[in-house]
């Protein structure tokens, strides 16, 4: 499946970048704008790259799709679904206009991530424009590829600070034959965490988990036989959960005027909040916290346990969104940024100062 492509946008963007770099300017890369909240606000010339769209290659039997970055995520999801395939990381859209480029740049994944892998795990190759206006290609369209440093995966979560993603090749997975959600009563977060991590040594076909308000939910996906057998072993009560609402963060929990924090921890870590207003996903690795918190103090405790805290939404001005890096690591990452974007024109300061 191949669309007719117009390459002139690539040339136009390249010319534009060279001009901005030469004049000491700065650019904010904009796709669909659905995830613009994610990252520090920046003041720079917005460049809309969402017009750079089109499917370059999709042959379901290869389990790989190659897309221009401006493709709309919703449309791609629909196309994959027609072929009984999907993105294994279940990315949130957060809007009709979300693009593939934004999906890769933010690196945000959904309920299946803890079991299927992150966006980074599925990206196979990228074509990008660097800060010199050069078109560079890394990786490819094949699953196994160890030629050169794996630059394509470095783009995932870099929030556009290393270059403009033009094209990306992503591995896809088959849609499971069947799905079943079962529910359990678990009064405390710790009860849930101990329970779900205790299941890990058995090959159950788990693909999502959720705990909130004293109740755990577990999604099983796979063949009819595999799922029904696991369900009978696991007990619990069959329940209806719209996991699409979970993926899109449209559960009632997220509908709040309060600050929202995202705490990432090694999944089996004990609860360190003891708050009612928590929602736990990813087998315990992702814990959403609603309400006022002492960000600095909690960051220190979370980091001590091997995790990090993102001041995700509605925190006070001046609170850095992302978890600060150790000084030496920040310096290394700034050097990496400069190697792609020496004039620091792309999304300056979107992640950290100088990044």
């Amino acid at each position, binding site marked *: 499946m191949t669309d007719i492509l117009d390459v002139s946008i690539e040339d136009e963007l390249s010319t534009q970048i060279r001009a901005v770099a030469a004049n000491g300017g700065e650019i904010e890369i904009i796709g669909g704008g659905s995830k613009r909240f994610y990252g520090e606000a920046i003041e720079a010339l917005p460049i809309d790259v969402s017009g750079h769209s089109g499917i370059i290659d999709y042959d379901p039997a290869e389990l790989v799709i190659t897309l221009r970055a401006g493709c709309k995520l919703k449309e791609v999801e629909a196309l994959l679904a027609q072929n*009984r395939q999907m993105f294994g990381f279940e990315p949130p859209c957060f809007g009709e206009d979300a693009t593939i480029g934004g999906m890769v740049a933010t690196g945000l994944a959904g309920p299946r991530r803890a079991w299927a892998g992150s966006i980074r795990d599925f990206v196979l190759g990228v074509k990008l424009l660097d800060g010199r206006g050069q078109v560079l290609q890394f990786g490819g*369209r094949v699953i*196994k590829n160890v030629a*050169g440093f794996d630059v394509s995966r470095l783009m995932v979560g870099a929030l556009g600070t290393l270059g403009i993603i033009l094209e990306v090749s992503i591995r896809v997975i088959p849609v499971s034959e069947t799905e079943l959600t079962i529910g359990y009563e678990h009064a405390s977060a710790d009860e849930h965490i101990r329970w779900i*991590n205790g299941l890990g040594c058995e090959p159950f076909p788990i693909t999502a988990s959720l705990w909130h308000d004293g109740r755990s939910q577990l999604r099983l996906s796979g063949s*009819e036989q595999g799922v029904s057998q696991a369900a009978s072993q696991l007990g619990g009560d069959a329940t209806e959960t719209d996991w699409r609402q979970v993926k899109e963060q449209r559960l009632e929990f997220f509908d709040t005027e309060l600050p929202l924090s995202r705490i990432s921890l090694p999944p089996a870590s004990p609860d360190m909040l003891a708050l009612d207003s928590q929602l736990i996903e990813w087998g315990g690795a992702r814990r959403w916290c609603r309400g006022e918190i002492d960000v600095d103090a909690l960051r220190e405790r979370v980091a001590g346990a091997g995790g*990090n805290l993102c001041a995700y939404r509605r925190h006070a001005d001046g609170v850095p969104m992302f978890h600060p890096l150790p000084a030496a690591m920040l310096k290394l*990452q700034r050097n990496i940024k400069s*190697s792609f974007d020496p004039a620091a024109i792309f999304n300056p300061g979107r992640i950290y100062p100088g990044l």
Partner: protein
Amino acid sequence: MSQTRRQQLAVRFREFLPADSVIDQPTSLAAYECDGLSAYREQPLLVLLPQDTAQVQQIMRLCHEQRLPVVGRGAGTSLSGGALPHAEGVVLSLAKMNRILQVDELSRSAVVEPGVRNLAISEAVQSKGLYYAPDPSSQIACSIGGNVAENAGGVHCLKYGLTLHNILALKVVGADGELFEIDQRCLHIDGYDLMPLLVGSEGMLGIVVEVTVKLLPIPRCARVVMGVFDSVEAAGDSVAAIIAEGIIPAGVEMMDNPAIRAAEDFVHANYPVEAEAILICELDGTEEEVVAQIDLVEQVLNKGGAVETRLAKDEAERLLFWSGRKAAFPAVGRISPDYYCIDGTIPRKALAAVLTGVRELSEQFGLPVANVFHAGDGNLHPLILYDANNEGELEKTEALGSKILQLCIHHGGTITGEHGVGVEKIGEMCIQFSDSERNQFHALRECFDPLKILNPGKAIPTLARCAEHNAMHVHDGKLPFPELERF
């Protein structure tokens, strides 16, 4: 480099390392002259065998101060010369750092030192019903540190991923001796994700001193079905058809007629020697799932033109089906004085075109080629049969190998799927990447190692190196580790 320089440096390193951790005698250094790519040999100034992270840091600080090239080495099983010593540098062997530090059942992970053997991890956690999934063919010998450096694969990559997908955290000593960590046990990190840069960096960005690996529950059941075909195209199409059914096999391997014959002569796996191609497809999971899927796979193979399908009736027969495939390299080594192994990867749909191209090139160069193929993930291992004793035949073989890799690139593939670039494929890197892409690689390297002391001359060619084309060749069928499986 003079013997005096060697002695002077040995004295400096012995200031903080035990005497037996500094090897400076030429007879003992000889054991480190090469890795699994034995055609390339070099004697290093010294071999250093630190016992812990602090010693690695001290070594790196001194090397940094002296601007000494450092070649990291695990078990030395690389097939691409990644651990080939530098004549004016040291080999930093992680062999003594071989302890399993921690196994955590609840979080399904293990913390291990880099010198721990790949298979030793699975053996250590087997009693808990867990295992470490990536299984490169050298897994009984190769070390986890080497696996990280090379992003090692194996026959189960399609379902379980490469090394990258099975690593949760790394502790790394940088070129300046400073320790840094990449900890992704929490499944999300802020800032740049350096894990994919480090994994597969062929020892050029740092020395890995601790690895946290992900463990998986051992599948309850594994079964194998063999499809016999009278054309490689039909076999290739059947792989696509299996995947189109929504099935991800644990492994799918293909062999062509020359490879089938060689394997059958060697191990008597009861392979059909008249067949043009066979597919070996393994499914794993719960008993119920596997039974249902294997039935479906058999139907797909029959519909796809298989002249015969054979279902391994028990574990003994499953291992017999695998034995021929796993013996393919040594089997080819028996029928030819030398062979040269290619590691190109292609989109699966290009299989027929690439195999036809390989056949034409084989005829054109007058050198036979046997093909074994990790069909699930498109990783092709053509084996070129030649005799190094015939004048000019090695050069001709290398030229044919390079042509085959160019064919892989032309069809949207890559020059190396799992063996790494090392010194072997450094010439082909010039074809796969443009000057500006290679400059980006060099720039990234300098972010980590501004003095360029880590594994210089490997993996990323300078413009000057771009004319060189080299290759793995095996004399008289003998690899440096003849007891290891190669597939």
